[in-house]
């Protein structure tokens, strides 16, 4: 690393870099500063090195002391004045054994300490030491990390153990519960089985009872029947209380006829009558059904016709020739069928009915498909519409515009209504007065609002004026100072001509420092009278020397505050004037009305300021 004595300084610097104690580094920096200064003042390198060495010995050595206090005392005991050479040889030996270059070079008058080698070795050793320290530190950190890791792992281990314990317990609990539930299920199963058996038993009992009951019923009924029979017989046989029928005289039949003998003929007649009534009933029912059928057929026909008329106009609008063809075909078929069915409506034979129903079905199918197609089209169109939807912003814009328009129209209507009312009002005095009152009120309101706005404007103006006056005051102060400066400067100039110039100089600089830089720059051109005019036109307060201190005009103030572009009043065009006017620049207007007569404007504004 260190090869020549010229590199010493660099090497030492490098060495310093390794010393990482902050206070030391600071010192090193100081040293560096000092070094640089000294560099320019160019002192001998030797001196510097020695001083450095001194410094380093006084500053570097305490560092290891603080860092590793165990190693340093040995060093202090190791080498004394007496055993330097032995120490050197020992160290040399040690160093060589460690594989470092030798510290001594054999010369004719014994071993001589090679400073470069020593330094290199020291550097190497230090680096080694540093590296060792670093590794130690790293290892320590690693250790700490691993320790904490270990702690964490132990902690987690215990936690997991706890969890395991808990889950084990839970598991056993659940197992127990499961066992219990299984037991329960088993018992319930048993119960169910029992119940089922019971149910079966009961069902069988019920069935047997039912059969028994039926049997009994039948038996009893039979017995009852027998008893009835017997009773009947007994009653018939018994003579004591027989049925009696007393009647004064027999009456004629209700129909006035005489009753007929029962013969085969009468039976046949009865049958015939019965069938006649039945037939009549069926006839009437048949008639009803026929009528109903006819009605329904009529309805069907009408429906069909309607369908045809509905479907026909759609035909040309259908896109696709295939559809057209099929439609035409079917429609022609339909027409045929329709005609034929119309003819055969009265016949109401099987064939015609089938045709009619078939045609209706066909029509219906077509109508359905048509409607479905329309539906799908509608949905498609809807989707397309959704796809091509106008962006929202446009919509909103349009909406806003329309709203505005509506508002406008509303206003229009309102005013029109008002006018109308005003026109109509004379007919009724009271309402007219009321309306007038209303209008007065409205007018008042409006005036109030106007007044308010005026007030606000006035306030704004006041605020502005205040600002301006403040600025003017400031400027006047500055002007005063400037004037003073100028006076002193003039005095100085005057005095410069006198032999006391040198004595006055420091005073002058003092006054200069009191002013800002711009003032200083301003001062300089003042010396040249040629530039004076120019400066007059440029700056606001660089008026003619003769003019007294005045408050500036607002326009000038504006200009100084960079509110309006800096232009010479003479070059301002009327057009630009007007633009300024339009901006509501009242003071500017004032000034220009005055035809650029600065002095008058100044006086005017000055007066105003004074008054305020």
């Amino acid at each position: 690393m260190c090869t020549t004595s010229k590199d010493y300084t660099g090497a030492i610097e490098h060495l310093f870099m390794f010393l990482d104690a902050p206070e030391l580094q600071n010192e090193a920096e100081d040293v560096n500063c000092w070094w640089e200064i000294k560099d320019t003042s160019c002192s001998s390198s030797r001196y510097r090195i020695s001083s450095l060495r001194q410094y380093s010995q006084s500053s570097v050595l305490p560092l290891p002391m603080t860092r590793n206090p165990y190693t340093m005392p040995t060093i202090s005991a190791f080498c004394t004045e007496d055993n330097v050479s032995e120490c050197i040889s020992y160290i040399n030996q040690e160093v060589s054994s460690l594989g470092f270059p030798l510290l001594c070079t054999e010369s004719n008058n014994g071993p001589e300490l090679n400073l470069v080698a020593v330094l290199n070795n020291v550097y190497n050793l230090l680096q080694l030491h540093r590296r060792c320290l670093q590794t130690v530190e790293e290892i320590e950190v690693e250790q700490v990390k691993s320790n904490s890791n270990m702690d964490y792992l132990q902690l987690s281990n215990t936690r997991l153990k706890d969890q395991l314990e808990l889950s084990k317990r839970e598991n056993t609990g659940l197992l127990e519960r499961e066992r219990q539930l299984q037991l329960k299920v088993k018992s319930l199963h048993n119960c169910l089985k029992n119940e089922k058996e019971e149910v079966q038993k009961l069902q069988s009992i019920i069935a047997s009872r039912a059969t028994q009951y039926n049997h009994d019923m039948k038996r009893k009924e039979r017995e009852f029947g027998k008893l009835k029979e017997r009773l009947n017989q007994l009653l018939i046989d018994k003579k004591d209380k027989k049925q009696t029928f007393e009647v004064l005289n027999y009456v004629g039949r209700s129909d006035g006829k005489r009753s007929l003998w029962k013969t085969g003929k009468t039976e046949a007649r009865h049958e015939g009558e019965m069938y006649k009534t039945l037939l009549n009933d069926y006839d009437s029912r048949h008639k009803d059904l026929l009528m109903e059928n006819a009605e329904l057929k009529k309805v069907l026909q009408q429906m069909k016709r309607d369908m045809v008329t509905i479907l026909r106009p759609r035909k040309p609008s259908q896109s696709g020739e295939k559809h057209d063809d099929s439609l035409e075909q079917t429609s022609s078929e339909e027409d045929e069928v329709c005609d034929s069915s119309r003819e055969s409506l009265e016949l109401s034979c099987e064939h015609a009915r089938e045709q009619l129903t078939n045609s209706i079905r066909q029509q219906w199918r077509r109508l359905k498909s048509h409607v479905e197609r329309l539906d799908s089209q509608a949905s498609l169109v809807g989707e397309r519409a959704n796809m091509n939807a106008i962006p929202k912003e446009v919509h909103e814009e349009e909406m806003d515009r329309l709203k505005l328009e509506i508002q406008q129209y509303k206003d229009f209507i309102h005013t029109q209504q008002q006018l109308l009312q005003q026109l109509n009002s004379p007919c009724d005095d009271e309402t007219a007065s009321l309306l007038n009152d209303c209008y007065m009120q409205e007018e008042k309101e409006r005036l109030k609002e106007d007044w308010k706005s005026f007030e606000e404007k006035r306030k704004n103006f006041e605020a502005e004026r205040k600002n301006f006056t403040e600025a003017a005051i400031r400027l006047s102060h500055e002007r005063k100072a400037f004037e003073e400066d100028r006076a002193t400067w003039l005095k100085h100039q005057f005095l410069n001509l006198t032999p006391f110039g040198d004595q006055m100089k420091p005073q002058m600089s003092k006054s200069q420092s009191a002013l800002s830089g711009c003032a200083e720059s301003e001062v300089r051109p003042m010396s040249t009278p040629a530039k004076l005019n120019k400066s007059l036109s440029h700056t606001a307060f660089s008026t003619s020397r003769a003019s007294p201190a005045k408050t500036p005009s607002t326009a000038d103030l504006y200009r100084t505050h960079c509110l309006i572009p800096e232009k010479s009043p003479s070059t301002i065009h009327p057009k630009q004037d007007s633009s300024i006017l339009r901006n509501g620049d009242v003071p500017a207007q004032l000034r220009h009305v005055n035809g650029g007569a600065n002095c008058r404007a100044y006086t005017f504004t000055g007066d105003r300021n004074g008054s305020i």
Partner: protein
Amino acid sequence: MNFSEVFKQSNQLCRVSPDGKYLATCVQYRLVVRDVNTLQILHLYTCLDQIVHMEWSSDSLFILCAMYKRGLVQVWSLEQPDWYCKIDEGSIGLVSSRWSPDGRHILNTTEFHLRVTVWSLCTKAVSYIKYPKACQKGIDFSRDGCYMALAERRDCRDYVSVFVCDDWHLLRHFETETQDLAGVEWSPNGCVLAVWDSCLEYKVLLYSLDGRLLSTFSAYEWSLGIKSLAWSPSSQFLAIGSYDGKVRILNHITWKKVTEFDHPASINNTKAVVYKEVERKPVVGSADLFIQQRITMGSTLFNTQSKYEICPLPVQVPVVKPDLDRANPKVGVSSMAFSSDNRYLATKNDNMACVVWVWDMQRLGLLAVLEQTSAVRCFQWDPRRPRLALCTGNAKLYLWSPAGCVSVQVPAEGGFQVQSVTWHCSGDSLILLGKEQLCLVSHPCR
């Protein structure tokens, strides 16, 4: 609306003659025949005992009075007041007596339903029909009076015999597919005979006049079945009321169910109008008003006034939970009646005893609900107009028509409680029967 004076009657025996001219009432053992219009007594007959049953012959010429306990039937003639006829069934007993449709024969059912005796007033002939079944409605005559259907039980099987009423000729005799036949009923046109099973099984069998089985209908099994049955006057519909609180309507072409009318406890059918009877107690306290009322209203003073209010839907109908352990539980549709024009059907569900339901048969939906303050005793349609009269055992008569509902106080003395109502065949007057009294209402709602 004119109320007649109140007459006495017993056993609710009060009948208007089929021609509408006479009014026969029974008071104990006396039979009183009055003119319907003048209410003057035309005839007075005295029977041998207290009359239990009384019936006009179809030609309004004879009146039958039956005294079941004595097994006696007495027949009186209007044309010949001194003509008499007495039938004594003797020791065999008597449980039911009725006229045949021609008004010349009397059918007596003996005790234990041993037989039906047919007595002829024209000839001395007596016919016996054996094995009649004791059931809800074992005998039914067709509307035209030509045929009689009789339920029979032989050898634990049900049979139906169809007789020609003219000469009691047995036209058809067939076995029915019923477990325990409960009733037979002819369709109004006399061509179809509806036969239904007892309440243990829901089964309706429809037979043609010639004994062919036309159709069988069963709505459900394993539950109490049919409770009532009604033909529409046009024979187009057969309404079957059952213990599940529903009415099923069959059509006359396919004999399939057209619709089903439920009787829900909560009515939220927006097409139905719910009329609720609201009672207004007379204001007691102001003496003047009291006296005034006494003067104007007479005996109705102590009766509460009532009126109908239309209830906003949904309406909760009071439901009585029946005691299912006892016989004949109060559930199910017990009475149904079609209006004379076939337009409306009135029904009553027994566990909603205060409510009468009126159904529109054109729309096949609920039309009106009449919620009364007390249980409905009886309702009957006007034979001419779509007008329903009902009573609830208090002193009021209620009338419903498609136009609305009205409650009328009966201005009779001594707490007249209307037990049943009967329309005169012209529809111009109503007979109100109390416990021991009767009252004729002419020109109701006019």
